[in-house]
């Protein structure tokens, strides 16, 4: 094969390689959400209440303990799982049970859930239970407009009044 033809073929193959790199490095574009959708992200890090409430030790009990171990209260370590229910326009869309972390189940409960929803105006109701009896005593309900591509974070921050929409 003559040299010009060989170099020509090389140029074509190099160009094909470059074109493949150039195209696949940005295309085809990917749509992370279905068209006309918004996203609700439920993300919380919250320690549930203790499974058994703390109890004051009696004087006899304290006397039986070594001096450096005489804590006034006896607190069993295990905590309750945190439950979160999410309802959209009256329909349940998530029921999350987040168990406590740790071998002794005494750590915080961490939960994350991704909920794509159609964009538009919705009534969002989130309720949370963090005790052994699963009492949903923390509730937030709000009507809100979720535009296409909007990300709404649902969090739980006791210092800011409990359930937070951000």
């Amino acid at each position, binding site marked *: *094969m003559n040299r010009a033809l*060989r170099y020509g*073929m*090389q140029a*074509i*193959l*190099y*160009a094909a*390689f*470059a074109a*493949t*790199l*150039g195209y*696949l*490095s*940005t*295309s*085809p*574009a*990917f*749509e*992370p*959400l279905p*068209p006309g959708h918004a*996203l609700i*992200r439920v*993300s919380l*890090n919250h320690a549930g209440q203790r499974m058994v409430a703390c109890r004051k030790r009696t004087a006899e009990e304290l006397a039986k303990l070594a001096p450096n171990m005489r804590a006034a209260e006896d607190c069993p370590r295990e905590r309750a799982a945190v439950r979160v229910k999410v309802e959209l326009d009256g329909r349940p869309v998530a029921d999350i049970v*987040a168990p406590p*972390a740790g071998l002794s189940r005494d750590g915080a409960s*961490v*939960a*994350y859930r*991704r909920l794509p929803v159609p964009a538009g105006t919705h009534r969002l109701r989130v309720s949370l239970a963090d005790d052994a009896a699963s009492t949903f005593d923390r509730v937030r309900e709000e009507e809100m407009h979720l535009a*296409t*591509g*909007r*990300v709404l*974070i649902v*969090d739980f921050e006791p210092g800011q009044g409990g359930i937070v929409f*951000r």
Partner: protein
Amino acid sequence: MDAARAALPRPGRAALVLERVEAFFDRAFGQRLNPWRHLGALGFHFFWICCASGIWIYVGFDTSATGARESLAAMDANDWPLGAFARALHRYSADALVAVTALHLLRELARRHYAAFRRFAWLTGIFALVVMFAAGIGGYWLPWDQLAQWSLTATTEWFDALPVFDGALTRNVISGDQVSDRFFSLLIFLHIGLPLTMLGAMWVHVQRVSPARTSPPAALAWGSAATLAALCLAKPLALMPAADLSRIPAAIPLDWFYLFPHVLMAAIGPDGLWVATAAFLAVLAALPWATRVPRAPAARVNLDNCNGCARCFADCPYDAVVMVARTDARPHPRQAQVDPLLCAGCGVCTGACPSSTPFRRDEQLATGIDMPSLPIGELRSRLEARAEGLAGHPRIVVFGCRWGADSARLEDASTAAVEFLCAAMVPPSFVEYALRAGADGVLVAGCREGDCEFRVGEALTAARLEARRAPALRPTVPRERVRLVPAGRSDLAVLREQLADFRTELTRLGPRAARHALPPKRQEKRHG
């Protein structure tokens, strides 16, 4: 012995298909520069380009979450010298690294290069593959634009599917108005640490090949670098808008080389992606044990014929031969020792051994390091029998390679063929012996250039026949009567063509003057 030889490995069907694809590239690049035969070296090449451009970018990069994107935008405006070019080069060289690595993996898979002595390189290659993706995906987080935000969130969502994280990682990305500088520093650290880990993995990956080819030929290196440079100028990178945790962009210009796992996760969920990834890696990792890839038995050292010259040690492509202190009473300080786990059974060492000369008088020719499946003594007997039966003019002996074109199909009244385990198993003295045993010419058929099943066989053969490397073809051998032909398994037609051309040349040269000129003592042995 014939049944045992029939069980010796041959190229599989997939390898033959690949050979035809490579043949097309041979036409454009020539055999020596064919990029298919330098995929691993090209991987190193693109890795270094990626590192160099990355270091240049890092010098001008603001390492805070709030300043990162702005500093890169300034680079794109070329406020930082060659900033836009360096950014594009960094991206495209990283993409090219994935492309050649994927092809390298497919090629080695098609050639069944994963078992036995190649198991170590295969498994370390899988590890390097995983680190490459980890390092590459982490690079997409540093501009901290919407692509970075989406990729980072998708990655943390994937890891959060593991019970050990359970949602904790994604909180780092989405819980505040902005990721913290401390967290962003961790991402930068990952994008420096993981490529360094990858470099270590690549170094380990080539530890059991000798010599490791980590640089492509200069012409290919310059050609591929120029291609990347042209692409950088033709299509510079564009940043997406700054990360905004309250929004997800409608469409993301995705780099499919690295970020396709995010798309896969969107389709099958984080758990599905874990299952798919684990299954893919498990299948790759299990291949060396799950499939049987035949190989020739390991070489054996015969101490009575080993003088510790270390030529087998120098030529072994897999470092299976080591030189150790002598264990017998012979007056040589060292002896060769073969590690059967590392030995490919290629016979390159037999071709390198000076004791492999067929001119020795012993009826049972034995050499210093021999192949149990095809001993050198049997090859000499076969050569003598074939050469003796040749008639007419010119008489040609073809030394074929088991992995190359089937030389047996060339046999006729004036052409004899003897097949070796590899062209580099042919000791140059066999060429001279064939000429003195009655051949007018000797044709050695090896694999295509750079395509030896055992990495360097065809290059060693050429170097020995051209007297550039010991054991060399002696200067008294007429070079015009020796021809080396690169011919892959599917190149029988090429080999036939070359044989016909060689025959014409030998006809022009006339018969060998010293026919039947074996050493007298050897002739005595043969004919009583």
